[in-house]
């Protein structure tokens, strides 16, 4: 199985490579050429002009501010997840309280709740709380919807810590608090980086909560900026694709340098 080449899968993988590679090539090429060149020679051609105007145009359209807002949202969501999930997962794995296993069931149930399902009441709650059109109003629900998956991933990685280590510490009279900081946190670094990646991607790519819960330019995040750009300048395809490229650039850069960690992190989302 692993020794001879698998031709069927090989062909499939080449086709898939083409399906993914071609659009990415068109995207990159289009962002570096003028609108006239793109319209005249078509998307797949090799550019005969070179310009950075498409990127500059995106910044003129306000993308600098949107970028900043997205960074704020992403950092805050990751922060909240990292504060809330480790103690939760620790309790899920080690606590024998019945209530804790009920809490875990609640979070498992939460896996099936899509953001769309709660968007109307969320709009009501956030408006009532006076957080409408405020980045905090986006951060809180986004973080909440990262919790179930993060808890699942992290508790999976904490479960791999050998029980003997806990017993040894218990014999030494360690409190749960000390075990958490000296044993559980250091030994679940892998899981912690996975949930960081997961939450960051969710927050960076989030669309529905910002769409419904913010309004003004000063609170717009980058996905929303992209959507507006498309509605307003849909005909300027190189300009639009420049904005698309900008929105994904940070993620792609991280991916380039930390591919292994990122892919493994994402792998944990589905099945470790």
């Amino acid at each position, binding site marked *: 199985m692993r020794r001879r080449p698998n031709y069927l899968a090989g062909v499939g993988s080449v086709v898939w490579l083409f399906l993914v590679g071609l659009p990415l090539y068109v995207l990159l090429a289009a962002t570096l050429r003028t609108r006239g060149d793109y319209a005249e020679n078509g998307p797949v051609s090799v550019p005969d002009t070179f310009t950075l105007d498409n990127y500059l145009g995106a910044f003129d359209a306000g993308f600098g501010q949107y970028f900043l807002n997205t960074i704020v949202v992403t950092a805050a969501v990751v922060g909240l997840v990292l504060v809330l999930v480790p103690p939760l997962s620790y*309790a899920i794995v080690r606590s024998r309280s*019945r209530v804790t296993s009920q809490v875990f069931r609640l979070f498992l149930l939460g896996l099936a709740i899509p953001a769309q*399902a709660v968007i109307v009441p969320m709009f009501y709650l956030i408006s009532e709380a006076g957080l409408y059109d405020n980045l905090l109003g986006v951060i809180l629900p986004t973080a909440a919807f990262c919790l179930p998956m993060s808890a699942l991933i992290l508790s999976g990685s904490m479960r791999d810590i050998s029980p003997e280590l806990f017993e040894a510490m218990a014999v030494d009279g360690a409190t749960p608090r000390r075990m958490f900081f000296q044993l559980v946190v250091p030994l679940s670094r892998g899981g912690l980086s996975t949930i960081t990646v997961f939450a960051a991607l969710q927050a960076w790519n989030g*669309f529905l909560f910002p769409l419904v819960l913010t309004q003004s330019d000063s609170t717009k995040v980058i996905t929303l900026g992209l959507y507006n750009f498309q509605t307003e300048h849909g005909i300027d395809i190189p300009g639009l694709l420049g904005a698309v490229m900008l929105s994904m650039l940070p993620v792609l850069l991280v991916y380039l340098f930390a591919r292994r960690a990122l892919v493994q992190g994402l792998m944990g989302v*589905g099945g470790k």
Partner: protein
Amino acid sequence: MTTQITSAPPAAEPRKGDRRRPAGSPAANVGRPGFGWALPAAIFFTLFAIVPLIMVAVLSFMSWNGLGSPRFVGTENWSRLLDDPVMLKSIWITLLLTVLGIVVQTPLSILLGVWAAGHQRNRAVLSAIYFVPLLLSATAVSVLWRALLDPNFGIPAEATWLFGDGNLFGEQTTAIGVLAFVSTWQFTPFHTLIYQGAARAVPEVLYQAAEIDGAGRYRQFFHITLPQLRNSMITSMILMTVGGLTTFETVLILTQGGPGTDTTISAYYMYEKAFKSFDFGVGSAIALTLVVAATVISLVVVRVSGYDKMRSSMEGVS
């Protein structure tokens, strides 16, 4: 593949080496964290996910236009939805797109996942490019494909032999085709990852034994690899179902539900009702329908497959 999407809560199944003292004995909880450790996350989650979920049920019996206070109207929203041809149509389109997604993506991602789990040449470079769509937001992906498939300036204008007049968004069949294609493009890498992880965890001994018995590659695939991927298939299909039922950005950006209402899936219709027509009661009723459907389907799949026994797929192997 030690823990899957439904890893056992600690109380459900003691693991080897986790010698348990009888519950309730005073020594049992020494050095163990109490429920308090889970409390902050539980409160936060309840406030921003469970409470809204309960409220969506309540709001589906209310009339609210976004201003002022919601007013109780009984089952009016529901009976209006039942008589609404667009709602019924949207359910069919949602189901069609979900099923289409599963049928197209499952074989594709199994094939690619098993391939990526092997040791082919150039695999690292190839799979680096493979997984890019996975990192992108649905918004970026949709905007990208909207531009690439533009009837005047996009790829269809280049390849008229394939696309005819090139307006893929003007007809129901092709518009649905575009939506299915774009979700496949975006999500296949993710499901490939699930299968890749699972295929790597298949014990080599099974293949060695099969080889001794003279089983060929295809028999090995169908009799060893596929059965061993069972749990992952369930995980993957549940995720595809929930994802399919709640597709939103793709439709908003690529087709706006059109032509006419031909690609108006339920999640998009919910958004239109609530945030464009300011009919939040009806919007809530649609949302509730979606949650119930997603939950029921997931539960049925989990039950039918025996997945709720929460057995680790490595059991009995090591």
